[in-house]
C-alpha cells in the first residue's frame, strides 16, 4: 500500500499522512456529495500531467 502511494506521488505516508495529518488541507478537496461518491467508487481519479505538481481529474467512460 505504502509503496503504491509513494510511487504515485512521492508521498511518504508516515511522514505526511500520519494521524491528524491525514486531514491536512493538501490531502483533501471540496467536492459535491455525489461527485464524492463517484470518487470513492474509483470512477473518478487523478492523472499526472506534464506540469510539475499538477494532477488532472479523469472520469471513467
Amino acid at each position, binding site marked *: 500500500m505504502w509503496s503504491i502511494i509513494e510511487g504515485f506521488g512521492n508521498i511518504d505516508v508516515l511522514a505526511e499522512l500520519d494521524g491528524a495529518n491525514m*486531514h*491536512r488541507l493538501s*490531502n*483533501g478537496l*471540496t467536492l*459535491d456529495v455525489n*461527485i464524492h461518491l463517484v470518487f470513492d467508487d474509483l470512477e473518478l481519479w487523478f492523472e499526472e500531467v506534464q506540469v510539475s505538481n499538477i494532477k488532472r*481529474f479523469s472520469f471513467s467512460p
Partner: protein
Amino acid sequence: MHRNFYINAMTGPPKDHSTAKQAVSPPATSRVYVSNYDFLQALHRDNYRCMITGWVNRNSYKAMTDAERQQFGLVGVFQTSNTNFCHIFPPSTNWGIKPEVPGHPKVLSLTPSFQCRLLILFVVTVFWVCVEHYRGFW
C-alpha cells in the same frame, strides 16, 4: 454568523477528542470524521465551490453577506449544492499500521467484521465443495 468568522477565530485543528467532537462537520454523507476546521479551511481555499462541477456550497452561500459574495465572486447565476471535504488518500490508508512496533507488517489489519465475513465465506465454500463431492452418493 458566517463561517469565515470561525476560520479566523480558530487557531488550529482541535487538539483533543472533546474539542474535535464539538466542531464536527455537518455533511451527512461524509464517511469519516472531519473536523469543522478542516472542512471550513478547504471550503475557503476552494472558493466555496466543488472542484469538479464548480457548484457553490449552499450553506456557505446562504450564510454570506452580499459583500462576502462579491469578495468570493459568488455573483450571477450558478448552481448550488451540498459539498464535502473529500480525502484524496482516505484515512483507512493508515488504519491498523503500527510503525512504532519493530517488524510490524506494513499491511492493513482486518477488522472483526471483515474477519467474520471471511469465516462465513470459508464455511459456505467448504459446504458447497462437500455438496459437489458427495452429490453422486445422495
